[in-house]
């Protein structure tokens, strides 16, 4: 019991959020959103799974022969991948930047013992398959793996994984890239998903850095392209100039192609504002 808490210190606790009620901004209503059982199922699973993990009843439940879980029953093929993701977030983030350690983790993930080691700290997913007494040993090995990277295949984890029947996680991964991509590469069939987690990560990273800034940048590029097009055609340029009485376009100071053309066509124009340039380019 103490072991779990020790391992999980600083890790997100998510079950408390099951009771939160959020206002939905999307009009989309799927099967789960439309159901009455969604919240009940998550509550029940939280209590059942959380209770088992925390109160150390894992072995007892397994011995009682009632160890099936949703994950085991319906997503057994995903177990290797999911357990590979099951590294504590804070430690995982740290591990992402540690090449040697990540390589060690990836190597561990190359076999069933590694997947077991990653999955073990939570004690989930192996319900009903672990030999009595192996859960704690595997949990300790998992923590050790996460902490040191290279110590993954401790005997406890191996024994645990072997007894839990975890899938072999594939061929491992190269030394480059982060822990997640290694884990994913080792455990998932990313041939079917060539962009995979890296692509998602990049997109969200860009999003996290500011969707608004991203949109603004796109808009600026659009306007610049449009503006650039106009400068290629002197007649069009004249039309635009005629549409904007009294306006003198801004000439940016850093080099894009149209600057020199702008200088050639209208060397006498005084600087304006970027907004005015955009408006000019749009013709109003």
């Amino acid at each position, binding site marked *: *019991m103490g072991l*779990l*808490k020790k391992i999980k*210190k600083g*890790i997100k*606790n*998510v*079950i408390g959020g099951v*009771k*939160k*009620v*959020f206002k939905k901004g*999307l009009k*989309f209503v*799927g*099967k*789960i*959103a439309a*159901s009455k*059982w969604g919240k*009940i*199922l*998550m509550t*029940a*699973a939280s*209590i059942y799974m*959380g*209770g088992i*993990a925390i*109160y150390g*009843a894992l072995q*007892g*439940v397994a011995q*009682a022969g009632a160890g099936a879980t949703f*994950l085991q*029953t*319906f*997503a057994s093929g*995903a177990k290797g*991948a*999911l357990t590979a*993701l099951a590294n504590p977030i804070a430690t*995982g*983030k740290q591990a992402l930047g540690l090449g040697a350690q990540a390589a060690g983790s990836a190597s561990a993930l190359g076999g069933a013992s590694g997947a077991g080691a990653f999955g073990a700290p*939570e004690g989930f997913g192996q319900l009903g398959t672990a030999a009595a007494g192996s859960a704690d040993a595997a949990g300790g090995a998992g923590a050790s793996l996460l902490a040191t990277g290279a110590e993954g295949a401790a005997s406890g984890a191996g024994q645990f994984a072997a007894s839990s029947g975890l899938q072999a996680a594939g061929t491992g991964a190269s030394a480059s890239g982060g822990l*997640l991509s290694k884990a994913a590469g080792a455990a*998932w069939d990313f041939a079917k*998903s*060539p*962009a995979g*987690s890296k*692509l*998602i*990560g990049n*997109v*969200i*990273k860009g*999003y*996290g850095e500011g*969707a608004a800034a991203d949109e603004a940048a796109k808009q600026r590029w659009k306007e610049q392209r449009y503006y650039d097009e106009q400068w290629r055609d002197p007649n069009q340029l004249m039309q635009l100039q005629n549409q904007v009485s009294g306006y003198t376009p801004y000439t940016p100071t850093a080099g894009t192609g149209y600057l020199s053309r702008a200088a050639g066509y209208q060397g006498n124009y005084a600087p304006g504002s970027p907004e005015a340039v955009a408006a000019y380019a749009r013709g109003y």
Partner: protein
Amino acid sequence: MGMLQQAENPGAVDVTSREAAVDPNVQGAPATPANGVAVARESADKTPSADAPEEQATPEEQAEYEKAIDAVTTVLYKNQGTSEAINDMLQPQDKISSVVQATVLTLHQIDAQLDLDGSVIPQVTQDIADMVMDMGEKTKGMTFSDKEAQAVLGSCWEAVMQIYGTDEDAYHNFTQGLDDKKISGYEQQYQNMLKEASNG
């Protein structure tokens, strides 16, 4: 756990009917082994008949949730690359498992970048699972019965719990206000819904 004690007293709870599966008041044997924590919970339980409480998200949590959903829609719908990648992961011959993988990977990656508050993750998990199933239906011709949708959500949530975990304090807070019958009832619901989904 109540399930353990249920094994000792299997007749105490109606585990067969559909009503029982969704009734948090289903009667069961006393839950949770007497290891001290259960005693503490019971002593703190001032509302023994209370159901699992729901509470409105705070404005901060709501904002966090909306941020997460924006990111989800970016990945699933707005960005062609990620949308195709997720879509490629969906396998009609292994639909539940593939939806679970796509859902959890999406959540994990979004959280890795945005560092979501833990309180929004359950709802976001539900929403992603819903959207991924919808994507599978529209692009791969997958169909999901209610039971299969239960299987998807149950599996996704267990995977999320596996990834993010919980501890005694969180579990204690979550179950505070629930007496042993309620706890046992939820455990029964879990088993019943698993059984029901398995028969789908």
